[in-house]
């Protein structure tokens, strides 16, 4: 069975996710702006401590959430999207590889997280190192042979060979 890690459909889905994240960021920023306006309109000397405390908590939460969304969601997504577009538009290398080992750790490559795979090309026994997107749900088995289509060492598609 062929598994596509990068495809036009995937790119479309990723773009939707990216738009949703921007909508979330801008929407919550607007909500915060409304709160600032309300604070400006309704604060006075007796209530100023409450507004400062409430405003500090809300602004801190927004900044922390925004930082998480930008650093941990939007940034890797954008990098992966860009890489996927490049990979699908360029010539890719296809090899039949027997999987020797699967890396347990996660490494960041070109702005997104990847896992490692090591194997030998079955004809020439060349040692091959591949990466694949870390959250991809792949059921790889050591010793099995896979036809791997990759760009710059990152798996685009793969299929288990009988």
């Amino acid at each position, binding site marked *: 069975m062929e598994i596509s890690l990068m495809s036009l459909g995937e790119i479309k889905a990723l773009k939707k996710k990216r738009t949703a994240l921007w909508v979330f960021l801008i929407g919550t920023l607007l909500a915060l702006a409304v709160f600032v306006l309300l604070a400006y309109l309704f604060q006075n000397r007796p209530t100023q401590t409450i507004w400062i405390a409430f405003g500090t908590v809300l602004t801190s939460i927004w*900044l922390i959430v925004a930082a998480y969304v930008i650093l941990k*969601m939007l940034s890797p997504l954008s990098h992966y999207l860009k890489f996927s577009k490049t990979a699908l538009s360029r010539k890719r290398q296809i090899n039949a590889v027997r999987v020797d080992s699967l890396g347990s750790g996660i490494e960041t490559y070109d702005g997104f997280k990847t896992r490692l795979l090591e194997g030998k090309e079955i004809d020439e026994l060349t040692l091959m190192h591949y990466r694949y997107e870390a959250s991809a749900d792949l059921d790889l088995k050591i010793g099995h042979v896979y036809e791997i289509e990759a760009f710059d060492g990152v798996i685009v598609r793969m299929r288990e060979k009988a």
Partner: protein
Amino acid sequence: MKIAPNKKDLGDFFVTWGWLLLLFIGLSYVVWYWPISTLDSIKDYEQINFFFESYGLNDNTLQSDLLADLQGKGVAEVNLYDYAPTDASLTSYYDKFGAASDFLVLTGNDLDAMFASSASTSVASEFVPFSSALRTATMPTDDYEYFQVSAVSYGLKVYDAAEVSYNAAHPFDKLLDFTSSGTAGDSYYLLLNAQTPNFKPYDADAITSNAVEALRYFLAEYR
């Protein structure tokens, strides 16, 4: 690509970016504290300030009593600054507190020195004179003596170093101690500072009449 947050990612994020998150909390506090405290700060037109040259306050209820009387008229704070005429730092205290005070109680010697210079007209412009209109508005009976320059009354005498009967009729010594052993006696005068915005309509630049109300209260309290 899955981007939904999970426990591990969140944990890693807080560990890696902890310093930034602390900075965000501090920044948020500053961003809220500074503008709100600026908006709510007590403005010049909400303050009544007294700067006294004297050897001590005898009555410490003027501040609270005057505030209670004027609170409904937009006054949020009454401050009393009291320094001895012999204080070596008096000039710097005057620059810091007196220059922004509505009411100044200064010695006759100081007034003589202030108004003696050739530029006394510019000095005079810094004070609101006790015009007949102002006197009518603030005094039930005008039996005060004044420090006059060119026939204009700038200082209302609150203590006469030589005339006991004047002081008995105008007992400002209930508020201030005008004498000190070892110093030569001096008369004291109350001046109205035109640099504050509270002498409407007797000062063209003023925006409130709070100091006029305060003057009425002050004179009624000590007679």
